[in-house]
């Protein structure tokens, strides 16, 4: 119990961020029209690609003889980039169509 409380104490900043972000996330998309559900999901999909930053850190910290970290890190960087770049491009393509429609 004591160690749990210390853990909370030493990570309080992060815990605050988590709680606030949960509310921000819910608030921000509260009134989205159903037409935008798909692009919004796709956009959110691209945003969670931030995980790539973790992959870059893993990669950058890996020692030169640590082949496991090098290989997995490299793979993680590729996958993370796929998520970010692919995610944003797909979302843009979806939304492009919405825009074209308005001009007509």
């Amino acid at each position: 119990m004591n160690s749990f409380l210390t853990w909370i104490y030493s990570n309080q900043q992060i815990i605050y961020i988590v709680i606030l972000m949960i509310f921000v996330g819910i608030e921000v998309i509260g009134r989205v029209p159903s037409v935008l559900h798909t692009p919004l999901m796709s956009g959110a999909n691209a945003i969670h690609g931030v995980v790539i930053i973790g992959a870059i850190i893993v990669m950058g910290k890996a020692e030169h003889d640590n082949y496991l970290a090098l290989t997995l890190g490299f793979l993680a960087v590729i996958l993370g980039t796929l998520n970010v770049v692919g995610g944003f491009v797909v979302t843009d393509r979806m939304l492009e169509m919405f825009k074209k429609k308005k001009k007509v």
Partner: protein
Amino acid sequence: MGLNILTLCYIIGSVTFIIGLKMLSNPAAARNGNLVAAAGMTIAILGTIFLYEEGGQRLGNYGWIFGGIAIGAVVGTLAAKKVKMTAMPEMVSMFNGMGGACAALISIVEFNHLAHDVIPGSNEIYLPDGAKGMLLIIILGLVIGSVSFAGSMIAWGKLNGSIKDYSFKGQHIVNIILLAIILGLAVCLIGWLPGNSKLIFYSIFALSLFYGVFFVFPIGGADMPVVISILNSFTGVAAACGGFLYDNKVMLTGGILVGAAGTLLTILMCRAMNRSLLNVLIGSFGGSASGGGGTKEQGQYKEISLSDAAVVMSYANKVMIVPGYGLAVAQAQHACHDLEKLLEEKGVTVKYAIHPVAGRMPGHMNVLLAEADVSYEKLLEMEQANEEFPTTDVVLVLGANDVVNPAAKNDPASPIYGMPILDVELAKLCIINKRSMKPGYAGIENDLFFRPKTSMLFGDAKKVLQNLIGEIKNL
């Protein structure tokens, strides 16, 4: 200095994510919102590469990092640019899986960092004091990331048709047991740290992958969008675990933001179909559907010939087209637009009735028809369309089924009971284009096909539309 600028980069990144998401939920600003978030992401990534330091040490291995980013960027852009509009949902699922896999890989590397081998080569492991919190986060990232990866891959396979729905008796129990074993192993690993902890760690990894597969397998294809949305928010949480691990605020905010927004989005999607999330996850669609009126005898349906259909449509005052997944599969959006133009030339008013969940994803039909340059004003939302059906002469249903199924209104035993539908019956005549009499994706019989005002027009949507256009031109 470097670290201060990096902090600024991360703050900018976090703010753009929030603003971007906000703009994405507004039709007029959506496209810019996506760009804003992308710009923030670029700043955060570049900042990390060049400014990140730990204990005064900058990152190394630039060759590997840029190599990986280059490969990912090229492949990702090509895949995203080349994919057909109809395959968009699969693509989103695929990219989501990549993110999940990335999070799981980070966890594996960090576990090996954390656990120093006492004797190299043996399975003995030593964890520094106070590492339990870290271990918890690592395992959390591993489990969620792997479930998301495996689940997304199955969802991807199901959407492009290479994997069929599959469920066996007691599947839910197997799932629960699997989850319990994963939890048990995790508790055991963190609590006691037994000698063979590497083995346990990798068992958790393997079991999580299995869980992801079994989690998505029994869920009916019609519910796929909901599943992808859930997996999307899972990956968000997995990314946030990475943020916890590195005390990295932009990963944390981005991940949690998506986790929360994704969860809400999932609930909104369920609400659009008037079903509860639990119902989607547990009541695997096909299985329970047979209970709802499935035993009812099939009545008589009548077919309409192409030339008859051409005649009634070109002499109608108002034609309403109801598109569904069949239209998407057949890539018939352009043929559909051609038919619309031809009929308009003949003085027929043509409009489209769009059900919020027609197709495989909300907004699927809007995107598809927009691709074929169908004008925005012609697309009616469900409420408007239902008001106009009584004054409509001909309704042409193209590959839609569940969204026009009257069972949703009058059969309480039906799994889709309560879902708002398009009241196509109110129109004077209803022509339904389907490939065969087989029930739709949800596996439910549709009474509409046997109603007196309904006529069937069998065939692939694109071929039928092209032939129909030919017939009308010949009139």
